[in-house]
C-alpha cells in the first residue's frame, strides 16, 4: 500500500499505551495512515492523531504489544480509506476492513476516506417511509422509518441481539418489494455473539446481502474506533452510489466508547463525565449522523445501534449522549425479560421521534396515531396502578382500575410478547391492540375519535360482521 519512496523512520521516542511518539520526521499530515513494522517483520496499521514539526503522535490500531524503539515507522501520505465496490456484499472483514473470509481482496471501484463528510442539511430528505419490522412493540408504538437512527438501550444479559437479528430478517417497506441490505459492525463483542449473528445470516441467506465487519472482544480495542466508520463508509457507498436501502447494525457502542476513553486517557486529555472525553458527543455524532436520506437519491441508511447501559443506568454518559443524537430509543427492561416476555421492550421510556411522519393513512392506517396515544396512556395507567396495588391491595381498587390492570397484563402477555420468528403485519399489531383496548370501558377511550372507534373497536366490528351476515342471509332468502 505504501508507495515507492516512502521514508522509513526509526525515531520512536516514546511508546505509551496505544500511542507511539515519533520525532525528527518530514512533515506528516494529520490523520495520515501509518504502517509500523515490528522487529519480527509483522506490519501494523496506525493513524496520526497529532502532528507537528517536532513530534508526531500515532495511535496503533492493533495495540503496541511487542513494539520497541527499533520499529520502523512509515507514513503513507494517505488518510485511512476503505476499498469500496458492490462486491463488498456477502463478504466478511475484520475491524480494519481487511477480508477475513478467505476470499480475494476487494478490487476497489473507489477508495473512500472512512472519516466521511457531513451530509449537507440542505440536501437531506426528511425520513417518512414506514418500515415494517414485524415486531409489535416497534411497529405499533415506536415506529421505525427509513433513514432513521434508532438505538437499542439494553442491559447485559438481555436479548438485544435477537431483536436486532429479527429486525434485520423481517424489515421491509411495504408495497415496494425492496429488501434491505445489512451492514453489520461488531465492536468488541464475543466470538460466540458474533457467531450467533453469522450463523443466522448464513441460515437465512441474508449474508449475500450483508457486509460484515468484525472486531471481536480479543481484537485490539483501538481498532474499534475505526470499525463503525469502515461500516458506515461501506453503507454510504452502497446506499448513495448503488441505491441500496441499508440497515446498519452497530454493536456494541459501549465498547466503542470505552476505546475512545482509553485513547483519551493515553493522551492525558482533560476528562469529562466519568472519565469519558469531553468531545464524546461530537465523536458519536460523526457516527450516528451518517444515517439518513438524500433528496434525489434512491438509497437510504437506517441505523440500528445497540448499546448496553452500564449498571442499567440510562443517565450514564453513553446512553445519555446517544439519546441526544439519535431519533429516539428502544429501552429494554430486565423486569419484562424476567417475566419471560420477548421482546422485553419497555414502551414507556422508549420513543421514536420520527414516528409521527411515518404513520397514518397511506402509510400504516388512519387510526394508528390516536390508537398509539390511547395504548400508551392505558398501559402507563395500568403500570402505575400496579404500584398502588402493591400498597393497598387489589380489593381496594375500583372496577375501572381493575380493568386497567388487566389491560396492562394482557398488553405484555399478548401484544408485546411474540415469537422470535413471528412476523406480524401492522394490521395485526393494530387489531390486536384494539382487542386489548376493548377490555377498557368504552368511555375511557378518550384519545380516539368516535369514527375510528366505530370502525375498529371489536364490539362494532363484530356487530358489523353480524349485520353483514344477516344481510347476506336475507339476500339469499330473497333470491330463493
Amino acid at each position, binding site marked *: 500500500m505504501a508507495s515507492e519512496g516512502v521514508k522509513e523512520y526509526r525515531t520512536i521516542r516514546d511508546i505509551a499505551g496505544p500511542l507511539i511518539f515519533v520525532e525528527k520526521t518530514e512533515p506528516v499530515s494529520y490523520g495520515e495512515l501509518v504502517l509500523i513494522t515490528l522487529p519480527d517483520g509483522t506490519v501494523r496499521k496506525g493513524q496520526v492523531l497529532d502532528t507537528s514539526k517536532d513530534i508526531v503522535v500515532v495511535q496503533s490500531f492493533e495495540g503496541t504489544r511487542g513494539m520497541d524503539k527499533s520499529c520502523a515507522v512509515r507514513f503513507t501520505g494517505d488518510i485511512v480509506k476503505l476499498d469500496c465496490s458492490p462486491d463488498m456484499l456477502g463478504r466478511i472483514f475484520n475491524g480494519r476492513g481487511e477480508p477475513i473470509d478467505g476470499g480475494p481482496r476487494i478490487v476497489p471501484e473507489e477508495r473512500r476516506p472512512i472519516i466521511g463528510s457531513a451530509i449537507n*442539511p440542505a440536501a*437531506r430528505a426528511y425520513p417518512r417511509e414506514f418500515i415494517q419490522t414485524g415486531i409489535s412493540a416497534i411497529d405499533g408504538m415506536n415506529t421505525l422509518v427509513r433513514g432513521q437512527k434508532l438505538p437499542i438501550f439494553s442491559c447485559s444479559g438481555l436479548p438485544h441481539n435477537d431483536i436486532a437479528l429479527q429486525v434485520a430478517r423481517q424489515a421491509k417497506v411495504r408495497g415496494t418489494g425492496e429488501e434491505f441490505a445489512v451492514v453489520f459492525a461488531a465492536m468488541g463483542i464475543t466470538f460466540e455473539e458474533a457467531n450467533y449473528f453469522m450463523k443466522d445470516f448464513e441460515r437465512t441467506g441474508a449474508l449475500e446481502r450483508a457486509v460484515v465487519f468484525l472486531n471481536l472482544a480479543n481484537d485490539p480495542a483501538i481498532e474499534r474506533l475505526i470499525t463503525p466508520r469502515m461500516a458506515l463508509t461501506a453503507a454510504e457507498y452502497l446506499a448513495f452510489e448503488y441505491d441500496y436501502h441499508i440497515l446498519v447494525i452497530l454493536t456494541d457502542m459501549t465498547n466503542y466508547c470505552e476505546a475512545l476513553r482509553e485513547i483519551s486517557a493515553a493522551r492525558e486529555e482533560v476528562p469529562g463525565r466519568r472519565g469519558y472525553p469531553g*468531545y464524546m*458527543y461530537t465523536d458519536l455524532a460523526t457516527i450516528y449522523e451518517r444515517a439518513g436520506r438524500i433528496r434525489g437519491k434512491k438509497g437510504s441508511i437506517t441505523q440500528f445501534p445497540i448499546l448496553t447501559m452500564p449498571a442499567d443506568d440510562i443517565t450514564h*454518559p453513553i446512553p445519555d449522549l446517544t439519546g*441526544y443524537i439519535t431519533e429516539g430509543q428502544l429501552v429494554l427492561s430486565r423486569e419484562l425479560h424476567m417475566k419471560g416476555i420477548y421482546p422485553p421492550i419497555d414502551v414507556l421510556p422508549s420513543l421514536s*421521534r420520527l414516528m409521527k411522519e411515518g404513520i397514518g393513512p397511506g402509510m400504516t392506517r388512519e387510526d394508528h396515531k390516536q390508537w398509539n396515544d390511547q395504548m400508551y396512556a392505558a398501559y402507563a395507567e395500568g403500570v402505575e396502578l400496579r404500584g398502588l396495588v402493591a400498597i393497598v391491595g387489589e380489593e381496594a381498587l375500583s372496577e375501572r382500575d381493575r380493568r386497567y390492570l388487566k389491560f396492562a397484563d394482557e398488553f405484555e402477555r399478548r401484544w408485546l410478547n411474540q415469537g422470535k420468528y413471528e412476523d406480524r403485519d401492522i394490521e395485526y399489531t393494530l387489531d390486536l391492540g384494539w382487542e386489548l383496548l376493548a377490555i377498557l370501558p368504552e368511555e375511557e377511550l378518550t384519545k380516539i375519535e368516535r369514527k375510528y372507534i366505530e370502525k375498529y373497536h371489536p364490539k362494532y366490528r363484530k356487530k358489523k360482521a353480524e349485520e353483514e351476515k344477516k344481510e347476506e342471509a336475507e339476500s339469499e332468502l330473497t333470491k330463493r
Partner: protein
Amino acid sequence: MEVKTAGSVGEIYRISGPLVVAEGLKAKMYDVCKVGEEGLMGEVVGIVGEKVLIQVYEDTSGVRPGEKVVNTGMPLSVELGPGLLKSIYDGVQRPLPVLREMSGDFIARGLEAPALDRKKKWDFKPTVKKGDKVKGGQIIGVVQETDIIEHKILVPPNVPERTVVEVYEGSFTVEDTIAVLDDGTELKLYHKWPVRVPRPYVEKLPPEVPLLTGQRILDIFFPIAKGGTAAIPGGFGTGKTVTQHQLAKWADAHVVVYIGCGERGNEMTEILEEFPELIDPRTGKPLMERAVLVANTSNMPVAAREASVYTGITIAEYYRDMGYDVALQADSTSRWAEAMREMSGRLEEMPGEEGYPAYLASRLAEFYERAGRVKTLAGNVGSVSVVGAVSPPGGDFSEPVTQNTLRIVKVFWALDSKLAARRHFPAINWLTSYSLYAETLQEWFRQRFPEWPEIRRWMMEVLQEEANLQEIVMLVGKDALPDKQRVLLEIARYIREFILLQYAYHEVDTYCPPEKMYDMMKAIKELADIFYKALEMGRTVEEIENVEGRDELLKSKYEVDYKPKLQAALEKIRKNLLGE
C-alpha cells in the same frame, strides 16, 4: 500603532484536530486565517510566544506541518443585506444550498461561497436625498426583501456623520453603489460586521411588551418579554426541540433566526421542509418569508459550531436595527458550550467545572446580554429575544451549563421528563418554571384583557394548592379530603387538561391566539364558580367529577370555531349541576 496583519503569511507548526498552531505569522486575536494549501477557514484564538493558535472551521485531515497560513487580517464577519431571509447557512454563514451545488450532497472542504447572492437584483427606494446628513445606523432606503419584510438599508454603524452627495434609485445587486458620501465613502446594499462584536444602539428599553408565542403555558404563566431571554433545559425526549420549533413558528416576532447548533440533521430538514409550507397566522404568508436558519449539525466541524451562535445573533441584531422584533432560537446552547470545552481542551487551558473552560459563565452572559429591546441608531424601537435550549447530561440541572445559564436568563421553562413520560405536552413543569417578566407584563395583558392577571394568579394558586394536596392524597387517599378540596383537585385537573395541555401537532391547537386563551381562562373560572355553587347546593363531589359535558368542554379547544362549543359545554354543565 496598529500592526497590519492582513496578508501576513506563516507556516503550520502543529495540527491537532481542529486546532492548528502556526509560526512566523503576524496576527491579532480573532483574525480569520486561511490554513493550508486548501485554504481552510480558521480563526486566531491564542498567541503564545512566537506561535499563533488557530481554530479551524473544517476537518483538518491531510493537512501537514509546513503548509502555509495566510492571515486575512479581518475578524470573523457576516454579510448583512437583503437576501438573508429564506436562507440557510452553516455556522460561518456559508449558504448550504450553494455549497450543495458546488460539492454535492456531502459538504467538501475549503469551499467558499458568498453569503448573499451577488447576481440577484433588488429594487432600492431611497429615503434620503442629496444633501441630507446621514450617520451610522441610519436608514437610507428600503428594499422589499420578501412579501412581508421590508428590508431597511442601513448606513454601517461605524460611519461618522456625513453628507450624501449621490444617491441612486433603481435595481441593484448587493455590491453596486447606491449612495456616495462627501468623504467618498460608497454605500452598498450590504455591509459586513464582526460577529463577536455586539452592534451598537442608543439605549436599552425596559421589557414591557410580551413576545406572544401562542403556547398557553408560556403566554399565560411564564411569558417572555420582547427583548427578553429564556432558557429551556431538559433531558432528551422532553420536547426541547419541539418547543423551540413552536416558538419559531408562532412567536409574534417580525423575523425569526433559528440556530441549529450541534443538533440532528433531520431536525434541520424538518424545518426546511415545513417552514415554506406553514402559514403565519398574522401575515397569511409562509413562515419562511421571515426566517433565517443557521444550521451546524452535530457532525459538522466543532469550531464552526462555536461560531454559529455569534453568526445567528449578529443577523438578529441587524434586523433589530431596522426596527423589527426578532426572535432568536438557539438549539442547543449546551452543544455550543461543549464546542468551547473541546477547543479549550485542545488549547490545554486550565479546566473549570466538569472540564468546561473557566470563561464559560462570561461567554454565556455575553451572548444573552446581546438580547434586548432597544432604541436603535435610526431612532426606531427593535428587539432581539433569545431562547436557548439547554441539554443537561442525564437531565441533571445541577450541571455547569444549566446553572450558569439560569444565573443570566430571566425566564426558565423547566422541561420535566416525568410529564413527558405521561405524554403531557408541553412538558413544562408549572411549579418549578418561572418568569421574572411576569409581573411587569401583566399591565400589558390587563389593558387588553381586564381579568387576565387575576385569573392567572388564581389558576397558579389552584395548581400550587393541588401540588400540596397531592402529597396528602398520596398518604391518606383522595376520599379523606374535605369536599371543597376535592373540588379544587378537579378544577386543577381542568386547568391541566384544558389550559396547559397543548399538542404541537394538532392542526388547530398548535397555535392559540391570546383572545382564545382569554376565553378559555374565563371559562375555567366560570366552571369553578359553578362547581363551588353546586357543592353549596348539596351536589356530591362524584356528581361534579362525572358531570356530563366534561368531554365536550375539554375537546372544544380543538375546534376552529371553538366559541359556541365551549359555551354550549359550559351551559350543559351548568344545567346538569345547578339545574338553571
